[in-house]
């Protein structure tokens, strides 16, 4: 299941929080254990002093007793040499024990221990005094009463207790320190593992997230590559289709142009077979019109663009053909044209070609009945996407009287002009006549 960025952030924050908590726990525990170690050190120091004092007190008591016993048995005062110093040591050690035990508030124990030691020293002093005074029997009786041993045993109960208690507390302290050290090691290890786990978890999450992003990017790239390939393939297919369509269209236009040329030739042949001038003219006019239409188709299959026609090129070609055809029919006028580059839709171009054919044919046929003259064709681009086609001559002009021709040409021009949304304006010149066609062009040059 993919992981969301929100999950990554929350999970990472959670893991890092756990890691920090564990870290703070380890630090806290380390500080606490350090405090405990300091307390133990102070206590151990005090216990060690107490233990030493108790052991020294017992040792001094034993030394004094050994001295006394040696003297009692042998009567040799050399045995008494350490006696006084042992008694002094007893006093010092007892004072230290009392001082160190005072904090434990064990008054009854201290009182009893002091009394026992005092009694013991008194007993030893008494027996030594008796022996010194050569009262051996009395000294032996005192010795045999076991009072001295009993006091020593009793003192030992207390001193052993003090030493043992100190040892036990020291042992307990050491055990606690060991436990604490063990806990510290254990918790540090566990904490370390938790932190490593947390960091590992974060890294894993980030790696996983990064991996997922990378995979998604690769997938997008792969999809893009596929899409581009598909677009390219599609484009290529479309281009091929378009090329096929254009070829087909050119072919159609070519066929249409050929067919129109064939029809025009048939009309021309038909015209040649006729003797009637009027009929011949009609057929010639028809032929010219067919040529005008065919000329557009020729243009279309010759150019790459079938939707629009370069009107200047089309009209130029059309007019050359017309001039040649009309002059071959014996018309003496000449044709001059000024054509600005204008583009027009194909259908409109056909209509416009037919109109130009009508107007130029009329000018050739009727403007100069007696001879030569000039017919001018002008094509201009106007503002606002409008263009203007003007056909003019310097001939006889449109005079009153019966209309020349059948009137079909005029009707064709009007119909064609309506079709392409053009306006027709006939105007007189002096001399001559002009016809103007204003029509919307594509605006492209």
């Amino acid at each position: 299941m993919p992981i969301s960025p929100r999950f990554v952030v929350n999970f990472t924050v959670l893991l890092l929080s756990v890691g920090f908590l564990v870290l703070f726990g380890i630090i806290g525990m380390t500080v606490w254990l350090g405090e405990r170690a300091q307390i133990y050190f102070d206590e151990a120091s005090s216990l060690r002093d107490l233990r030493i004092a108790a052991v020294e007190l017992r040792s001094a008591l034993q030394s004094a007793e050994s001295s006394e016993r040696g003297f009692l048995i042998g009567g040799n005062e050399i045995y008494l040499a350490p006696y006084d110093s042992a008694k002094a040591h007893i006093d010092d050690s007892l004072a230290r024990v009392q001082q160190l035990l005072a904090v434990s508030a064990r008054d009854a124990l201290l009182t009893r221990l002091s009394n026992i030691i005092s009694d013991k020293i008194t007993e030893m002093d008494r027996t030594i005094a008796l022996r010194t005074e050569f009262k051996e029997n009395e000294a032996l009786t005192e010795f045999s009463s076991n009072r001295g041993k009993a006091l020593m045993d009793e003192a030992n109960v207390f001193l052993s207790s003090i030493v043992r208690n100190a040892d036990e507390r020291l042992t307990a302290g050491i055990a606690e320190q060991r436990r604490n050290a063990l806990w510290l090691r254990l918790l540090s290890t566990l904490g370390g593992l938790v932190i490593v786990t947390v960091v590992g978890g974060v890294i894993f999450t980030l790696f996983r997230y990064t991996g997922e992003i990378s995979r998604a990017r690769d997938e997008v790239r792969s999809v893009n590559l596929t899409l581009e390939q598909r677009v390219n393939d599609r484009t290529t297919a479309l281009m091929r289709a378009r090329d096929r369509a254009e070829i087909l269209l050119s072919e159609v236009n070519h066929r249409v142009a050929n067919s129109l040329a064939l029809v025009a030739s048939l009309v021309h042949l038909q015209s040649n077979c006729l003797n009637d001038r009027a009929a011949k003219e009609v057929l010639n006019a028809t032929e010219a019109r067919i040529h005008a239409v065919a000329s557009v188709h020729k243009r279309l299959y010759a150019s790459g663009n079938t939707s629009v026609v370069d009107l200047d090129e089309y009209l130029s070609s059309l007019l050359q053909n017309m001039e040649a055809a009309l002059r071959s029919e014996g018309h003496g006028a000449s044709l001059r044209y000024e054509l600005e580059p204008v583009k027009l839709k194909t259908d409109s171009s056909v209509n416009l070609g037919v109109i130009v054919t009508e107007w130029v044919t009329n000018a050739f046929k009727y403007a100069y009945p007696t001879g030569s003259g000039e017919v001018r064709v002008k094509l201009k681009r106007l503002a606002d996407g409008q263009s203007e086609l003007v056909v003019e001559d310097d001939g006889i002009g449109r005079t009153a009287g019966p209309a020349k021709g059948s009137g079909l040409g005029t009707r064709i021009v009007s119909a064609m002009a309506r079709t392409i949304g053009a306006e027709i304006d006939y105007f007189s010149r002096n001399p001559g006549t002009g016809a103007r066609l204003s029509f919307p062009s594509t605006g492209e040059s």
Partner: protein
Amino acid sequence: MLHLRGQTVGSVALFLANVIAIGSGITAPLDGPTGIVRPIVLPPFDPSAAVCKRPSGLQRVLAFAQDNQREFMQGVARGLALAAKDRGLMFEIAQADNDAAKMIEQIKGFRDAKVGAVVVSPVDTPSIARHLQELIWSGAYVGTVVPPPATSLLNAPQYLTGKVLADEAADFINTRLSGRARVVLFTHDSLQFLAPRFTAMRDVFRKMPGVVIVADISPLTVDEAGGAAMMKTVLLANPDIDVVLGADTVVLGALSALREAGKTRPDQFLGGIDGEPLAVTEIRSGGPYKASVSLASPIFSYAMGQHAADWLEGKNIPQAMDILPRALTLQNLDAYERDVADPGAVYRDPQKRNVYLRMYGNICFDTRDQYINFPWSSERK
């Protein structure tokens, strides 16, 4: 040697001094064999040894020269009476009331009356020894409760006595206290011969690393008051005590001190030696007092009575006999009391008899010059 009760500690001390004096050869001139005076190790008793002649001219009477009427000796008297009855002997008791001279007169009287068997619990051994020897020379059976001279001497192994009690305590420490305990040993410094008891206790606890002997001390007086006073002292230094061992009277005193200090617990082990009635009562109550080592006086005295009858019939009898210590606990108290109530049944059942008694050496009328005349102990190495 047999441990005697606290109230006779003084006389026992005197008795021991006399025993030592005898052992050292400080005796009056003799008219007969001195017996075995140098300590030897006796072999086990052989009940199948050859039969001897019967003593002649002696009455089939079993007499008991009793030092005093303490319960222990009353048990001896009861066992002797039962044995005499079972073996068809006449039984007589002479109470000395702790009077050594009186006892000497009683012994003389027995000798003059040609009493065939005399059991003695001496008041003053040195003074009576010569008179006991005279009885022996006369061919009579002489059984003594502990000190020589005697044709058949009874003793109690002191080390074993201490060990039996310490083993009970050790078992309790191991099972109830997880092997850890603070132990108080109340010794008995005024009776040197009891030292092996405490040696045994120390030996047992030395093998237990969790046991600490916090006090190994003798009360100033070996009685309840002394035990209580010393226990209070010990409690000053060691407020928490798990085990207290010593003589029953002393341990009973320690118990009262613990109670006074509010330091008694059900998981404490207080144990004593002697089988004191108060100690038995405490054991029955199921409190801290858990055991008392007892020497079954009716059982050994019944055996002595049987031996006396055997002697008069010319049979071999043991030169010495151990009464083996038994630790009385809540679990075995009833069985023990049944045994003590019927010592004849115990004696007749060899298995049961071996639980209480162990016999050493052989002696009969013909070999009576080999009587024991030194302070015998089966624990002597």
